[in-house]
Every structure is written in structure tokens, then in C-alpha cells.
């Protein structure tokens, strides 16, 4: 199957507003898709719906052909563990664990042996250029380094899809550019699809497809 993300008439209402309105979009394997829009346009809500972090009011989300509506909370967690990696604007690293443990964090509840987890984590830290910072706590890393650790964490489970929520929002422009280039490089190196939510239209130049979101509605450029 070529379609990794597919939404059908997807809507979300809460507190009298409708941040996502009848969204129909699809993203194929190894595409780098960006969703551009102003703050409050509903981008993050849509990302949450695609990642199974929120339930839609109406419509469907299919990830690699699997309808999320048929899954309970734990099954959604397992789907994310196996198929999806997340990169957030606020990095969301575990403050008490060093970089190498943060990278391996999604594998903690699995039966992957500790040594294998460490080897894979170190390999990914090398890939993002941070092997020398493996034993540093997040508080000892710069913003760009933290986001690289978060990207390595998103890759630890060999996901088919990486969902990024404003990954450069907390970084200066030079570091932000480096991060986007690193993410774009992933498409070339592995069988991964990236769906990135951002309000930075410069990111679009790296994307193979660009969507725009305004008042809950999505259009493709």
C-alpha cells in the first residue's frame, strides 16, 4: 500500500469551535509533506487526530490502511510504538534521563534487550551527530541538540511515519534549517514518510507536497 496517511471527511469539534473541518487528504510513502498555517488554524489538532492522540468527532483516519476508529487507547499506543515517530516543538525529552536513554525511551516497554536498545540508540545519535553527547542530560544540551535527540528518538522504532509538530519553533533559523535538512535526509536514507506541521513557509522548499490550513480546512498547493 502506497498511502500512509488518509483522512476522510475528518472533523473535530470542541468548546463550540471546529478546528478541523471535513479534511480529506492523503500522503504517500516516502513523501515529505508539510502543513502550513497560522497559529490557531487547527494544524496541531489535525496532527493529533492523525497520530491517534485525539478522537475525531466525525470522519476517519487511516494509517497504512488501518482505521484508527477501530482501535482502543492501548491499541493506538501500540500502533504509535510500531509505526509512528513524533517530534514536538518543545522536544519533550525526559529530563532525568541522558540523551542515549531518551533515544531508547520508546523501547522501554518492549522486549528489546537493553544492549540492543543502547546500540541502536547510539547508532541513531551518530546519525544525528550527537554521539559525543550520549550521556548528557537534556538540561546540558542546546535547543538544536535536544531536537536532534528527539528526532533520533522518533526513529528508534523504525517508523513508517514521522509526525512533526513545529519542530523548528523553538530554534534559531540556522539550527532550524539544519534540523529540516536532517529530516529531509531521512527520506533519502530510509523508508519513512514525514508529515510536518509548521507556520514557517520556508520549510516548504524541502517538502514534496505542501498543504495549507485555514479555519479548519485544508487545501493542497
Amino acid at each position, binding site marked *: 500500500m502506497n498511502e500512509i496517511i488518509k483522512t476522510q471527511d475528518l472533523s473535530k469539534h470542541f468548546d463550540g469551535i471546529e478546528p478541523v473541518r471535513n479534511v480529506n487528504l492523503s500522503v504517500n510513502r516516502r513523501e515529505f509533506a508539510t502543513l502550513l498555517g497560522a*497559529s*490557531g488554524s487547527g494544524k*496541531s*489538532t489535525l496532527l*493529533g487526530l492523525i*497520530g491517534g*492522540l*485525539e478522537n475525531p468527532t466525525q470522519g476517519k483516519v487511516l494509517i497504512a490502511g488501518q482505521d484508527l476508529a477501530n482501535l482502543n*487507547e*492501548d491499541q493506538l*499506543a*501500540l*500502533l*504509535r*510504538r*510500531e509505526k*509512528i*515517530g*513524533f517530534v*514536538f*516543538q*518543545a522536544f*519533550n*525529552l*525526559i*529530563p*532525568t*534521563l541522558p540523551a542515549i*536513554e531518551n533515544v531508547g*525511551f*520508546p523501547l*522501554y*516497554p*518492549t*522486549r528489546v534487550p537493553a544492549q540492543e536498545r543502547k546500540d541502536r540508540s547510539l547508532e541513531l545519535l551518530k546519525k544525528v551527530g550527537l554521539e559525543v553527547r550520549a550521556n548528557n542530560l537534556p538540561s546540558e544540551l542546546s535547543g538544536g541538540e535536544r531536537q536532534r535527540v528527539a528526532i533520533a*528518538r522518533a526513529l528508534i*522504532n523504525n517508523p513508517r511515519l514521522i509526525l512533526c*509538530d*513545529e519542530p523548528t*519553533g*523553538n530554534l534559531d533559523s540556522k539550527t532550524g534549517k539544519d534540523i529540516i535538512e536532517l529530516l529531509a535526509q531521512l527520506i533519502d536514507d530510509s523508508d519513512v514518510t514525514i508529515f510536518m506541521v509548521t507556520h514557517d513557509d520556508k520549510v516548504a522548499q524541502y517538502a514534496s507536497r505542501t498543504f495549507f490550513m485555514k479555519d479548519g480546512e485544508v487545501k493542497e498547493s
Partner: protein
Amino acid sequence: MIHWHYVLSEIVHRWRRTSVSISLIAFSIGVLIVVNAVGDSFQRAFRAPLEDMGATVTVQRSGDVPEKMEGPVLPCSVAPIHQQETEKVVQLPGVQSMSQALLMWDFDPKGFRIIVGVRPEDDSGPALLKKALVSGRFLDKNEENSAVLDLTFARNANLEPGQTLEIWDRPFNIVGVVDSSRISQLATAQVYLPLSAARKIAAESSGVKAVHTFEKDDSNLLFVRADRDRSDELARQIKEIMGEKATVSTPTSFQEMLGSVFVLTDKFSLAISVLSLLVAFFLVARTTAANVRERRPEIGTMKAVGWTRKDILGQIGSETLIIILLGMVGGLVLGFVAAKALSLVTISIPIPWEMSPRPHFMPGGGDQLTRDVRLHVSISPVLMASAFLASLLIGIGSAWAMARSITRLKPSEVLRYE
């Protein structure tokens, strides 16, 4: 699967929260242990004056004051207890065994003597003096004319085994000397005679006959060994048999003599225990909920990267479990230290005047007798098991609070950053 490295890193890195939680649990468990251990030690202390005599309950009855202080008389606090009454008492439910004694004062022209008639074969009461023998031997149940003396009296009167003592013109062979102070302050005397001999003296004494009807099988002190839990009920039943003038001493009556504070401590130890547990339960549940609140982004991240609810509960539950176990150990240590410190405390239990064998009008006779008891606060295995159960309850409570918070947490809300 629980990742212990992560558990420990959370406990160590968040040391302030960890130490507050551990301290709260340790304090509550410590209070629970100490309150109950102190309550138990007081109960043991209140039993001490009676247990010195091998009894759970002692019985006597007040009567008339002797008309003249001449020859053998019965003190007004120990009027005769008739054999029929004794038989009714021994048949009461919960009574295991009973000893009898007869306390007399002998106003002899050569000097005053306190005499107690003893059944040597008894396993309670003054018969226990056989364990406090200093020289010679104790009385034998088949002999009538033997006497055992108290050590102080023997020294003052210059008497020793092998010599003869006259009581009301009757010669008694001194067979031994006992140190009464080693056993008790109740029913102690200067001269101990076989009960049968003492009964004969009382029955024939004009001083006794002037105010009492004394039969040959009567006595005036009963030492009842019974189920501890039934002592208060037994006291009530004995009073029904013996009438209003009966004085029935129980651990509760000694406790009541010490005043309302001790009664309140005893009655409210359960309430204090429950309250300390409830406070701990509430504080730990609140701390756990605050912990979950503080770690909302972390828990949101766990959910986002594929941790199931069970995985998250297992992980944070393990942290809580370790904190509770450390708190329990801290509480036990606190309890042990407090118990050791409180064990240095000695309380003086007053002996009621009617239980004092000495006449109040004699020198020193009016002094308040007391029994000094070290508290010996000890932590029993049952108490330790209760503390463990209490910790477990706190753990279940906090797990419930945690599960509730984690279930309600929506990762999209805590991870959003727009």
C-alpha cells in the same frame, strides 16, 4: 516491563518530592507504631501489680473496723469471704484457677505482726513467695505448725529457721525466710502460716469474732487467674456475687487510678492510628496526584511514543512502591527509636490503700504504695504486619489517584505548544 534505571533516576532526580513523600509515610507509620506500642506497654504496666501475684483479678471485701486492737484481728479492708461465695466465683466463665489467702493483723503484747495464711500448693497469690526463698524452705501443704518469715522482719526480730515463733500462744517452727519485696507489695506480710493454721487462729480469735462471722473454711483474699479479655466482665459478675462492699481489682481499675489521660490514651489509640493513616493516605494520594500533574508532559510523551496505560502505571507505580517501602522502613526505624526512648520511662502505679497489708495508723502505714513499672515499649510482629498493611493501603490509594489522573490525561493537550 518496568525499567528500574528510569524508576531510580526519577526517585533520585526528584529528591525533594521523594523525600517529602517518604517523610510523610514514615511519620504516619511511625505514629501508628508508637501509639499502638505505647498503648500495649501501658496495658502490660497496668497488669503488673496483679501479675506480680500471678493473678488477673484480686477480690476482697471491706467490713467493720475491729473493736479493739488486741490479738489477731481482720483489717477492715479484708472482711471474711465465705466458702460458698468462693465456690461461686471459681465457677464463673473464664476463671482458670483461684488461690485463697487470709490476711490478719496480730496485736501481740510483744509486738505487732502482719500474718498471711497461705495455701503452699497454689500457683498464685502469696504462695508465689516460694520463688523468693532466702534461707530454709517454704511451707508444706501437709504441715500445720510451720511458719516462714519475711527477711526484714526476721532480721529485726533476730529470728532464723530452726527457731520457734509464738502466735496467740501457739508455737510455730520457723522453716524458712523469704524476701517478700521480690514478689509484690500486695498481700505481703511478716509471717506466713499455712492457711489452715491461720483459719483456726481467726476462727478462735475474740477480736475477729467480735465483728465477723468467720467459718473454718473462710478466707479474705482471692487471687483469680482468668482470661485477660474477660477481666472486666468477671469483675462485674464477682461484685454481683459478693455485694457492693467487694473490692475487685483488675488492670482497668489500676488504669482508672492513674487518671483520665491514660484512659483516653487507651480509648483513642485506635482513633489516632486511623487518623494518622487517613492523613497519610490523603497526603500521599495528593502528592501522587501532584506528581502526575507535574509530570503531565512526560506522561503525554510516554503515551505519544507508544507506552500503554499499563506500562505507564507500572512505571510510575514502581516509583510509588519504592517510596512507600522506604517510607515504611523509615516509619519502622522511627517507631523503634521512639520505642527505645519511651522504654526508659518508668510509671508509678498507685496501689489502693485497701490493698495495702499495713495498718494506716502504724508508722509509714499511711504512705501511698506504688508499683514502679518500666514501660517496655516493644514492636510486635503483628504491629509490624499492621504497618506493612497500612503502607499497602496507602499504596493502593495512591495508585488509585494516579490511575485516575493518568486516564484523564490527554497527550494532545499536554504536548501541544502553539
